[in-house]
């Protein structure tokens, strides 16, 4: 359908755009940049910061260009006297409310308010400072997210993220006028509310009002401590995003450089969460098959659909909002939390280290992983399984602080024992990846044949659609899987908790007959995680996903059950999937939580 064209002039230059285009978008087409703060490509329009105002010839008032669609014959000025004065005033006003200790700020150099103040050279402003000493308290109650109201510009990007992308609404606007703030239910600490720690708000906060709780110093401390043996694991999605911290295109595959950088930082061993991603597939795949058998053969009342449990934001979401479905969650720990206890048992023994002296650090695209590592259940090894969790961004900072020229590093490989992985482990990083990896293995285990998709690429479960559904007919099974003959395996995939909620509501209403559901808390999956480089947009996430699938195609092995180190782990240590040791180390349980 061809859209109507609208003709207008921007700064006296004629332009013709589709009906419904905003003035902001039209101006960008002509390469006129209009500053924005409350605007974000992923979010609905707010039009509240007002820095994007422009002048429309003949109009008494300025117009918010992000919120106003073009109209025929419109004449817009993006940099008139009036506009400049208003914009400067607005930035100055924001600064009077702002704790502008930029040089000491966690977001120094990555702050949109700083950028626009820099453009407008707001030196000493004329207006009165409004920030009071009592406003300078940070909420550090959460192990994952720090909330600092003194940095907040009230753009409500976090509020819209939490409500619309994540359907959580832990953050909301309270009070009005000079007291207006972004707060939680009854102003409770972040750790005591429904927040899932997904960190999507952090990704979209233009300033440092919401940041991750950083553990960089603690990690350097243990690296420098000669008595500690420090191993690091890297999550799948980090390798296609960390390059952005060093100016590379989103999606650039820098796995080898990242490994090299980690060694130079002083980690004793550089290992890979992809390894435990492969392991997850074996455990979770077997769990699914067991549940199906119990349902179809034994006629037991087992919880189906089974739901993935890799995403700690999703887990906490379920615990708060759908506690009646906790039995549906796979009992498998996430790959991060499978890695921890294996490192401090199996691996420690192999490398002859005392687990008490071992430190496990993870590099995650995720802030919820910081919370997950603190869960009291996560002590399967007898120690805290994962000691510190750093985001992709924090790793970027560490590399810079250590003076490592990332882009010039030669590629290096992971250390062995918990370092080998397959393409199936890598694709965990993108939405649909766990499902694809599980199908690649489960189908083959049951039928003895590879999944019937060209080059193992299960396209129907890929892509950015909010909820994806697929079905695979299982035919000509091996004798021991006879009960699955002719069964159509139905799966669904959701990413972003608002999509997860929509899917869960269907399940709850009995309107969905899936066997297996994958949910990732973050939009686009881990590549869009709350610990990934900022900014994030759909375009950026698509590039990261392309990087992930590219990495998969370049791997020698692409099926989890073929990972030689995983095979060895079962032979020498675990003995069988879902066995006794697995139960102790690799599986967990969940607790219902209140809504507030």
């Amino acid at each position, binding site marked *: 359908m061809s859209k109507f064209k609208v003709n207008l002039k921007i700064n006296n230059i004629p332009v013709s755009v589709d009906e419904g285009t905003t003035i902001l978008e039209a101006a960008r087409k002509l390469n006129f940049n209009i500053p924005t703060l409350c605007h974000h490509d992923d979010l609905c*329009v*707010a*039009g*509240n*910061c*007002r*820095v994007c*105002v422009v002048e429309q010839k003949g109009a*008494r*008032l*300025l117009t*918010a260009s992000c*919120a*106003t*669609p073009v109209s025929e014959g419109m004449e817009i000025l993006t940099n008139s006297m*009036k506009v400049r*004065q*208003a914009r400067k*005033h*607005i930035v100055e*006003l*924001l600064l*009077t*409310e702002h704790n502008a200790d930029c040089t000491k700020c966690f977001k120094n150099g990555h702050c949109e308010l700083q950028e626009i103040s820099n453009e407008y050279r707001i030196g000493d402003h*004329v*207006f*009165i400072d*409004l920030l009071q000493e009592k406003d300078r308290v940070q909420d550090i109650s959460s192990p994952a997210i720090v909330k600092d109201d003194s940095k907040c*510009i*009230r753009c*409500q990007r976090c509020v819209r993220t939490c409500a619309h992308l994540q359907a959580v609404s832990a953050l*909301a*606007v309270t*009070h*009005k*006028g*000079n*007291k*207006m703030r972004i707060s939680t239910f009854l102003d409770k600490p972040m750790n005591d509310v429904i927040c899932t720690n997904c960190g999507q708000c952090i990704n979209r906060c233009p300033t440092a009002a919401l940041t991750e709780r950083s553990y960089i110093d603690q990690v350097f401390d243990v690296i420098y401590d000669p008595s500690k043996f420090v191993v690091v694991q890297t999550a799948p999605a980090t390798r296609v995003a960390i390059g952005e911290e060093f100016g590379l295109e989103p999606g650039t595959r820098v796995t080898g450089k990242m490994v090299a950088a980690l060694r130079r930082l002083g980690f004793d061993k550089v290992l890979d969460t992809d390894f435990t991603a492969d392991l997850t597939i074996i455990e979770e795949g077997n769990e699914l098959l067991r549940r199906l058998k119990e349902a179809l053969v034994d006629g037991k009342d087992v919880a189906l659909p089974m739901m993935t449990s890799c995403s700690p934001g999703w887990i906490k979401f379920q615990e708060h909002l759908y506690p009646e479905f906790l039995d549906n969650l796979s009992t498998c720990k996430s790959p991060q939390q499978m890695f921890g206890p294996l490192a401090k048992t199996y691996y420690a023994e192999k490398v002859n280290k005392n687990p008490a002296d071992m430190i496990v650090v993870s590099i995650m695209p995720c802030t919820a992983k910081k919370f997950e590592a603190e869960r009291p259940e996560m002590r399967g090894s007898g120690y805290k399984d994962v000691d510190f969790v750093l985001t992709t961004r924090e790793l970027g900072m560490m590399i810079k602080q250590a003076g490592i020229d990332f882009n010039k590093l030669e590629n290096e490989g992971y250390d062995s024992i918990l370092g080998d992985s397959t393409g199936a482990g890598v694709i965990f990083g993108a939405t649909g990846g766990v499902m694809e990896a599980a199908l690649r293995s489960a189908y083959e285990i049951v039928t003895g044949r590879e999944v019937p998709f060209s080059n193992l690429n299960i396209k129907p479960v890929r892509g950015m659609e909010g909820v994806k559904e697929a079905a695979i007919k299982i035919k000509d099974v091996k004798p021991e899987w006879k009960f699955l003959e002719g069964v159509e395996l139905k799966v669904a995939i959701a990413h972003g908790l608002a999509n997860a909620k929509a899917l869960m509501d269907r399940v709850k209403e009995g309107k969905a007959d899936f066997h297996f559901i994958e949910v990732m808390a973050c939009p686009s999956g881990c590549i869009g995680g709350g610990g990934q480089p900022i900014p994030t947009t759909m375009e950026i996430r698509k590039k990261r996903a392309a990087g992930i699938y590219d990495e998969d195609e370049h791997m020698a092995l692409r099926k989890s059950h073929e990972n030689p180190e995983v095979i060895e782990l079962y032979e020498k240590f675990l003995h069988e999937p879902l066995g006794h040791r697995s139960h102790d180390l690799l599986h967990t349980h969940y607790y219902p939580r209140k809504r507030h």
Partner: protein
Amino acid sequence: MKNKIKKVDLIFEKVDHLSILKKAFERTSDEIILDVIDSGLRGRGGAGFPTGLKWKFAKNEESDQKYVICNADEGEPGTFKDREILTNVPEKVLAGMALCGKAIGATEGYIYLRAEYNFLLGMLNEKIREFNKQMKNMNFEFSVFIRSGSGAYVCGEETALMESMEGHRGEPRNKPPFPTQHGYLAKPTSINNVETLVFALMIANLGPTMFKELGTFDSRGSKVFSISGDTPKAGIYELELGMSLEDFVHEFGDGDTKAVQVGGASGFCVARKHFKDTVIGFEGIPTGGSMMLFNSTRSMYNILKDYLEFFEEESCGQCTPCRVGCQQLLKGVEAVKKGIKPATYLNELQKLSETMKIASKCGLGQSVGNPFNSIVNNFREEIIY
């Protein structure tokens, strides 16, 4: 300019509202709307948008559902006329809503009642029940419902009001789209002030001509004023529009009037020297009804400070120019008064108020400059010394 104060009695006059409606229901929507357009009636809630046009826009929208809203939030300081109208002639308000429903094709009407007027709820609910029954008996599909506000001034702003009705925080929306396209529950909605609806009913009753003959070219008809402050005659008066402020003060002043705040806190302050050449109406200074008189015992600094404290608290807080601007204006005049900032700082603040006027998201932030500039310009010494 008219030279005399003329009292009128359209709003509070008792009429048989049902027979007016009966007559109206026999006409087409277009005929009803045309009369309202012809009468020149403009909204009485403050913004003064031509009521007939608003109805026409709403009527022209295609939709399965449309709504009528009666704005009874009456939050403007110094305004209390809607309360009197609702108390004395509630049937006329309800009938005005039904008339609007007929005109635009809506079957539901909502009254958004200021929280402080909840004492009227019992009586209004009684009247609404009766009225809804009457509409049914007349075979006209229209029901009225009532919603209570929660005490925020900004919820009188039409789109914030709709957000509030939908159960959200009362924050004004972006416009366009306008309520007539995308209003309550995203449906075409005509939102009108209490008084506007009653005038529309009276125009349907008496025809547009009688209304047109009152007032001036730009300000047709009469208006209910809420008169307060230093006056021996505080109260509610329906007066013909277009009078001069001098005549007004002559009638209502206490002999020592130094300034009149026209249009409430968000309106303009007129000093004595300008009374003569100030017209009360859309061509001069419009008002939603509030007229506050101040005599020479009043400190204009205190009055300004009072207004700014009101806005600092009542801004919804979402947009930067208004949220922070209000605080700056207040802190700024205080600093000038205390000598912390030089008198010339007032010029910076006046520039800032211009930004607030043109860059704020809604009418609240856009109008804070009205009282600020008119008081600072007229009473600069009182602010400084």
